[in-house]
């Protein structure tokens, strides 16, 4: 039987002929005709005109013919909805057929026809099929619910199919379970908020049982679903891991990778001291290595994932360097990925082998691969200090080959080596200079020019060399131009006598003849520096450069953690979160690793923050409820700059949703209305304080008269998380306006530009009042200070904690997210002084359950000092009473959104501990107001 003949009918009048054949009485002829139709459909011809004729063939006992007609229907029903109705009867009838294969076929096909009228008729048969006695029909029906949901989600909910689907998770047949899990997972993805899958220890147990029995594909569905579960404690995590590990020996790589995903995720919850943790680490390596003997396409997927795993947990594969050695016949995509992993695994222990390999690769044919290999040698030098010398000599050997792109690549990496190990390898400069003429790529030219400028004093003819570049100045790329400008200025500062003419030439080229603002600005700066204060110029231009770090291309930790949750999927192949390549609502939900549990006690309840949180925790860490005090103190102390990023932080940050989409539901029940734009006080004069009116407060550290306390700048976004961009900052309030003072530092090797900032919706509607103005691109190691004015007219969403602010900063490299807590006193407005009568009335009016009491400890100030200090931050003392030797201060303050907070502060002379009672109609702010008191009083 040769069906290929159907592909060759191309003559005219074909449709007409087919029509005749379709209506033929002979069964065989009919079938032939349908086959021809399908063949035409496949090659892209429009055969929709035959719709009624084909549908007429549907009523048949011949299953093969029936399937063909169904195939046709799936393709064209949408274009002919009215006629598609003709098919409904047959479908409904087939759903009742005694043959389970036919019942399943009907329900499967019906789900694929996206015509409303057909969908209506689908519900009843589907309901029956979901409860069919035959598992084959049930497993087909389970998937059909997902199809129907894709067409009409509301219908599925109204008809109660979701509950039936949930029941199927307990089905006796493993394949039904697997398909139900797949369908539910898909539906749940488009309803991130719904608790559709409702995973609990019982249902997990069912899934784990089905895992042992179902097909390889079913195992993948179940494992992928398990990966979304959050075990309640480390014991549960361990027991799930134990039952998942056998899957690592499955022949299907996807089963293995999905199992790896579950293990990598749940491992987060296991304590590193646990024996089991070590066992698990050991068990992970062999299956990962085995993946490399799969077909090349799968190897590629595996390697992209291993790249992530190696970054997350380098210990797993640290002894397996050899398996990543490139084979001569590997496809190029496998070679490039292996090379990447080799560099990541390179260490002192294996560097000799790695270098020998890399040298081998540098002689291969594929240009990209060779370049990458050369670059890798440079990275080895920077990563493993002991190997630097050998790397340099290897690179020199490669330069001797005179292969153009090898030489260029080598020069680029040698520049980095110079940066890392200053005054060590400069002897090779002479060799580099020999190759000056062959450099034609901007990056290599710029690198070479940098070298010449940096070491101008050691190169006799540096001026000639640089002059030769200057001839074609305007044809060079910006990168080269900028570098050339700097290099010549450096040269001038080092050898001023001979190079005056040269420097003038380059300055005029850069400032007068160039259209590039960056170049012009840099030119002017140098010019002015040189003409006003050459000593200062020397200090600036020839300043000692900080050493470069070893790993520059690590994936940002937050993203890495998210990608670990996507092991095996496309996201892990692209190294991008799904939102970057998936349209619509799907995939927008960020996944995150479970919070790392340090000790077994805190593991008992994951919600509670680890009790012994180290003081080096960064401010970006969003504290869990109940540990606010500790974190507030951290914030006030001006936390240390560096420290390992805490997983908890990254986890929360993964959930930052700048657009606020889908989070509306969280807003319910908030007490904060969007503040009217007019609440910002316009008065500049500070209100006169009650009684004392003493604006001078010697004990207060506040520098500005009418400004409130300003916390020292803290690092909000460490450089290692943001590809080299470090952001530190603080909030200030001065004469009625709030601003965010930022220090942006470029710790990367490339220039940063195109900065922009955006806030997520927050409790008080804080928003930038102006765009982020960074005037010039930020060159490496440059820091810029910016004061970003804020207003409170942005959109409002209640955050947890209340004073949490999620911020996105964009530059030319990427978008980075961080979150920070702002001190509430920046929101205290200047007209926050209440009338006495009003105060009394309000105090009585606010119910007692809204009163909160706090202790302010170790504050050595007296009542006068306290009230004047607080007034600096717009907390106004309305009255003062002396009761039984205690000073009672009655105070009021108002927030930008119009909420009043009333306070009673009890001070006992000689006792450094104060008692603070706060009353407010929105009691959730009390905690933060108290913190503001602490902050203001103690600084």
């Amino acid at each position: 039987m040769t069906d290929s003949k159907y592909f060759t009918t191309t003559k005219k009048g074909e449709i007409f002929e087919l029509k005749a054949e379709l209506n033929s009485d002979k069964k065989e002829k009919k079938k032939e005709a349908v086959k021809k139709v399908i063949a035409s459909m496949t090659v892209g011809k429009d055969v929709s005109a035959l719709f009624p004729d084909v549908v007429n063939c549907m009523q048949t006992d011949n299953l093969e013919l029936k399937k063909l007609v169904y195939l046709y229907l799936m393709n064209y029903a949408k274009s002919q909805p009215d006629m598609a109705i003709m098919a409904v009867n047959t479908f409904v009838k087939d759903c009742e057929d005694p043959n389970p294969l036919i019942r399943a076929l009907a329900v499967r096909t019906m789900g694929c026809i996206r015509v409303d009228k057909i969908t209506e008729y689908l519900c009843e048969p589907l309901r029956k099929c979901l409860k069919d006695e035959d598992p084959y029909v049930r497993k087909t029906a389970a998937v059909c619910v997902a199809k129907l949901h894709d067409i009409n989600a509301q219908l599925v909910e109204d008809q109660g199919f979701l509950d039936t689907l949930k029941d199927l998770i307990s089905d006796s047949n493993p394949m039904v379970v697997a398909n139900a899990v797949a369908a539910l997972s898909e539906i749940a993805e488009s309803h991130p908020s719904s608790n559709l899958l409702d995973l609990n220890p019982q249902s997990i147990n069912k899934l784990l049982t089905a895992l042992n029995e179902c097909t390889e594909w079913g195992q993948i569905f179940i494992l992928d679903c398990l990966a979304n579960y959050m075990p309640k404690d480390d014991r549960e995590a361990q027991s799930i891991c134990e039952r998942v590990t056998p899957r690592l020996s499955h022949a299907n790589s996807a089963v293995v990778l999905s199992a790896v995903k579950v293990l990598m995720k749940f491992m987060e919850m296991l304590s590193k001291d646990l024996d089991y943790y070590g066992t698990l680490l050991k068990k992970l390596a062999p299956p990962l290595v085995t993946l490399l003997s799969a077909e090349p396409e799968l190897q590629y997927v595996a390697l992209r994932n291993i790249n992530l795993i190696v970054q997350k947990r380098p210990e797993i594969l640290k002894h397996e360097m050899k398996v990543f050695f490139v084979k001569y016949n590997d496809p190029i995509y496998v070679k490039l990925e292996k090379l990447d992993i080799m560099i990541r695994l390179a260490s002192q222990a294996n560097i000799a082998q790695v270098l020998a390999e890399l040298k081998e690769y540098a002689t291969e044919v594929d240009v990209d691969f060779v370049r990458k290999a050369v670059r890798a040698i440079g990275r080895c030098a920077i990563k493993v200090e002991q190997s630097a010398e050998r790397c340099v000599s290897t690179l020199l050997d490669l330069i001797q080959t005179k292969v153009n792109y090898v030489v260029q690549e080598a020069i680029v990496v040698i520049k980095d080596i110079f940066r890392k190990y200053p005054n060590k390898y400069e002897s090779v400069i002479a060799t580099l200079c020999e190759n000056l003429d062959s450099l034609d790529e901007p990056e290599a030219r710029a690198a070479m020019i940098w070298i010449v400028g940096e070491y101008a004093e050691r190169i006799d003819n540096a001026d000639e060399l640089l002059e030769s570049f200057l001839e074609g100045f305007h044809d060079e790329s910006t990168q080269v131009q900028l570098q050339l400008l700097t290099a010549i200025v450096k040269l001038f500062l080092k050898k001023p006598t001979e190079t005056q003419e040269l420097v003038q030439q380059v300055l005029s080229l850069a400032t007068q003849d160039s259209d590039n603002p960056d170049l012009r600005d840099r030119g002017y700066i140098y010019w002015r520096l040189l003409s006003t204060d050459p000593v200062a110029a020397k200090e600036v231009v020839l300043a000692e450069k900080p050493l470069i770090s070893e790993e520059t291309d690590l994936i940002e930790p937050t993203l890495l953690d998210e990608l670990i949750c996507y092991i095996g999927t496309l996201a892990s192949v692209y190294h991008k979160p799904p939102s970057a390549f998936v349209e619509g609502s799907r995939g927008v939900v960020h996944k995150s690793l479970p919070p790392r549990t340090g000790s077994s006690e805190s593991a008992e309840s994951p919600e509670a923050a680890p009790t012994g949180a180290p003081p080096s925790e960064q401010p970006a860490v969003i504290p869990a409820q109940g540990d606010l005090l500790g974190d507030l103190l951290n914030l006030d102390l001006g936390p240390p700059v560096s420290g390992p990023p805490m997983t908890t932080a990254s986890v929360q940050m993964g959930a930052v949703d700048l657009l606020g989409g889908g989070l509306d539901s969280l807003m319910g029940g908030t007490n904060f209305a969007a503040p009217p734009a007019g609440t910002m006080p316009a008065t500049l004069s500070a209100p006169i304080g009650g009684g004392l009116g003493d604006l001078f407060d010697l004990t207060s550290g506040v520098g500005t008269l009418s400004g409130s306390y300003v916390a020292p700048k803290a690092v909000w976004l460490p450089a290692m998380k943001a590809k080299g961009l470090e952001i530190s900052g603080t909030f200030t309030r001065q004469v009625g306006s709030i601003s965010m003072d930022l220090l942006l530092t470029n710790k990367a090797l490339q220039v940063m530009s195109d900065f922009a900032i955006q806030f997520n919706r927050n409790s008080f509607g804080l928003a930038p009042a102006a765009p982020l103005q960074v005037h010039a691109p930020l060159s490496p190691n440059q820091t810029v200070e910016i004061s970003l004015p804020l207003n409170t007219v942005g959109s409002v969403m209640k955050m947890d904690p209340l004073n949490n602010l999620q911020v996105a900063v964009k530059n030319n490299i990427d978008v980075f997210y961080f979150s920070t807590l702002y001190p509430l006193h920046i929101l205290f407005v200047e007209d926050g002084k209440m009338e006495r009568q009003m105060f009394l009335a309000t105090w009585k009016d606010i119910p007692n359950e809204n009163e909160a009491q706090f202790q302010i400890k170790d504050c050595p100030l007296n009542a006068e000092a306290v009230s004047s200090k607080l007034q600096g931050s717009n907390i106004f003392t309305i009255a003062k009473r002396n009761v039984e030797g205690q000073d009672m201060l009655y105070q009021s303050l108002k927030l930008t959104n119009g909420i009043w907070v009333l306070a009673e502060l009890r001070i006992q002379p000689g006792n450094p501990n104060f008692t603070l009672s706060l009353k407010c109609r929105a009691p959730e702010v009390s905690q933060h107001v108290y913190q503001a008191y602490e902050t203001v009083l103690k600084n």
Partner: protein
Amino acid sequence: MIGGLFIYNHKGEVLISRVYRDDIGRNAVDAFRVNVIHARQQVRSPVTNIARTSFFHVKRSNIWLAAVTKQNVNAAMVFEFLYKMCDVMAAYFGKISEENIKNNFVLIYELLDEILDFGYPQNSETGALKTFITQQGIKSQHTKEEQSQITSQVTGQIGWRREGIKYRRNELFLDVLESVNLLMSPQGQVLSAHVSGRVVMKSYLSGMPECKFGMNDKIVIEKQGKGTADETGKSGKQSIAIDDCTFHQCVRLSKFDSERSISFIPPDGEFELMRYRTTKDIILPFRVIPLVREVGRTKLEVKVVIKSNFKPSLLAQKIEVRIPTPLNTSGVQVICMKGKAKYKASENAIVWKIKRMAGMKESQISAEIELLPTNDKKKWARPPISMNFEVPFAPSGLKVRYLKVFEPKLNYSDHDVIKWVRYIGRSGIYETRC
């Protein structure tokens, strides 16, 4: 999940196109053709993202199979599925070629409808599929019993085997097939070596036989050795350390994980029971000793010695040594002691073939390569010398210790089953740099 599946011929013409999801439009078919099949450069990745649509492709001879999706699918699963799809097609109609695909397009659509539902892979075991998707026009008139037997097999725990299989002679064949991989430095240092092996079983057994497979796995032997102390010394030597292994889905993985025993109910006919990998104590059947000398700019002298390193009573077969030559080679003179050697200009290599060679022997080839003078500054990359061979033993040292068969319901015992075991070691990528 998978949104659609396309099959193209080498020209990029669509042979099969099946769309499962509404988000995949007609233009997806063309996007892949234009951007991948007709792309000017070599394919740089098996996954391509075009306009937010991801394409996964594999090639079989000159046929392209592409799966397409707009979602964040399990990428490993998609490739596994594509391979499986190839296996299923091959099991139905042999080689995957344009002609075969065109000849069987109706069948392929039927298969695609069955093994992929809304983009979710379903049971794809050929054994099960063949019970109800046949080429000879479907008999929809199965008896009721047959029908439920089919459906329970397709969805059941043992989806790979049907009940009621009967053989007069219960027989099974075990093939231990290993490929030994080596990368050696010119100085004879092993840079990397590993064996990737497969145990392929052909079973012709009646009923639902329970099988248990045992080999000289170090962990198992040491476990047993604890009981009988005197045996450890003897058997410990012959046991091998397996780095990792994977099993056919019929093997009970949890049992392997806890007891390290390999038990299963096999599919009928041929299947791959397990794959494994070893890196320790590998017997390298051949050693290649290269010697390349450049005589001036226009001549190379090459001498290669191969030594066989196994029992003299065994014979290696199909030996082939491939010595790469520079691109500017103008002529080659070869002398070899054994076998035949030829310079193949089209492949840029000297190919030396020896039919058979016993263990502990040595042979050598020497060649003079004349070169055309070139201006090319770039030195010749010197690809490694590669070797092919086949030996009648397992280079990993793996031994089958037993394969026990139990079928409690039928009246045949383990002793009645005729068992055959065969070991074949082949070269994988067996290279020596020169």
